[in-house]
């Protein structure tokens, strides 16, 4: 499972980076979304994947016994997903406005403010 997740995260990072480097604005924000998904899955995997070990304290015990699925990373990911959603929504509206004001989807045309 770990190997599979590592491969998946790698593919997400690679395709995200590739999309960010394209000239089209639409592909740019798709790439940014892929990058944030890759980061979320990375957090998920780094906390060690465990089946059948919910973080629940057994009735006969007072504390959590050692191997359990850590809930904290999932809470972190939940926060990050919400933030990522807001950012993606903003980015989608922004490229729409950029397209309206500049009339192009090509990032290479947007160079008048560079120095």
């Amino acid at each position, binding site marked *: 499972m770990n190997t599979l997740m590592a491969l998946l995260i790698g593919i997400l990072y690679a395709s995200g980076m590739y999309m960010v480097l394209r000239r089209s604005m639409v592909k740019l924000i798709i790439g*940014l979304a892929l990058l944030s998904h890759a980061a979320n899955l990375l957090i998920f995997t780094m906390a060690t994947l465990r089946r059948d070990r919910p973080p629940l304290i057994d009735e006969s015990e007072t504390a959590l016994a050692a191997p359990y699925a850590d809930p904290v990373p999932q809470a972190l990911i939940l926060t990050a997903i919400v933030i990522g959603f*807001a950012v993606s929504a903003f980015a989608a509206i922004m490229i729409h406005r950029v397209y309206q004001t500049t009339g192009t989807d090509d990032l290479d045309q947007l160079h008048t403010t560079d120095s």
Partner: protein
Amino acid sequence: MNLLLVAPILVPLLTAALCLLAWKSVRVQRWLGVAGSAALLASALALFAEVDGRGMAVSHAGEWAAPFGITLAADLLGALMVVLGGIVGLMVAVYSLGSIDEGRERFGFHPLVQILLMGVCGAFLTGDLFNLYVWFEVLLMASFVLTALGGERAQMEGAIKYVTLNLVSSAIFLAALGLLYGLTHSLNMADVSLRLARLNYPALENLLAVLFFIAFGIKAAVFPLFFWLPASYHTMPVAVSALFAGLLTKVGVYALIRVFTLVFRDDVEFIKELMLVVACLTMAVGVLGAVAQMEMRRILSFHIVSQIGYMIIGLALMTPLALAGTVFYLAHHIIVKTNLFLVSGAVARATGSFELKKSGGLYAAQPGLALLFLIPALSLAGIPPLSGFWGKYILVKAGLESGQVVLVVVALAVSVFTMISMMKIWSEAFWKPHPLGLTPAPVGLLNGPIAAMAAMTLAIGFGVEPVMQLAERSAQQLLEPQTYIQAVLEARR
């Protein structure tokens, strides 16, 4: 809860909420913005007084003891940064009364500034790494909207670069957080620091250190990650770019200082060498970029990059004197750089253009404004007895004590080039007659915040002793993180 610690976050939040309630009345929003920023500065000063007396202030959200709850903690550096944030916020709020057009005000300029200030103060006060990420997102979101607000073509072009690079930086920060959590199973900075010290994975720690350096380096605009800054800062309204120039890159520098003094303490020799090289190149490339520009705000944007290099020096050398120099430089730079952007707005208002070729005649028409420009400009270049001279003097002295001759040579050469840039602005915008023969218009209210910040520059320059003592005490705290760790882990409030 320690109310003093929460107030710098709550005050801007409340102000923003009140501004939204007064959505239809721009005039009410304006004065709410000024009053809210003044209240933020007052709460920041109260917090600073508390921290100055006790050394630390710690508070845990919901009474959950560290490392389980979210910690708010202020040491001297954090409290000082919050005070500086309050100063910049108030000055920009007053300045925007006379400079922001009503169209932007109608679409939420004032509440957005307050949200930005809340994010900045939150980032300075948090003691939790994931919480730091959340505050970064808060301030980024507000800054994204402020960047694009108005929707002019240049603004939209700048915005897309600003947004993209900052989102990439956030993704890297998040990935680094995930790896760090996997390694230490904690996010509280004090706790992570202790746990990392017990672990022995130098390769992973170095990898994490580099990831954090890249993530915060993009936000702080160090070489070679700074290209978004000079491509976007000159496109926004002056009040916004002054706010960004004063605070946003400095949040990145603050995060670098925090992470590399508290979290990663040992086993990261590699990153220290990397920082030395990066500091030299950031100073040199930034200042050379400025030489080629003939637009006032573009010149100033490149100088932000160059000055960030000076702040990295202290972090790379990590001696008490060098770190004190960095803290001093941060305080000096935030005030001076914000002021220079404010002056650029006044120059454009008076002469009609940010382009140096199209402006002129200000010295003859408004010698007062010319003097107010000279104070921060000469301070930026490092002319004694202004504040920039002392900052550079301390850093150069620390560099010589550590035997880093190349670094010292670069730092001194860069300040000569800074002087050239400032003199270019002086001779074009102030000294030469206006190319169209116009008499520059008066700038009225805009002079107020500019004069106030120039006075602060003079105060730091002539009253250098207390500020330097504060910087030294702060550096001592940063170099002995045990005090911070103990205060956070043992606080019971």
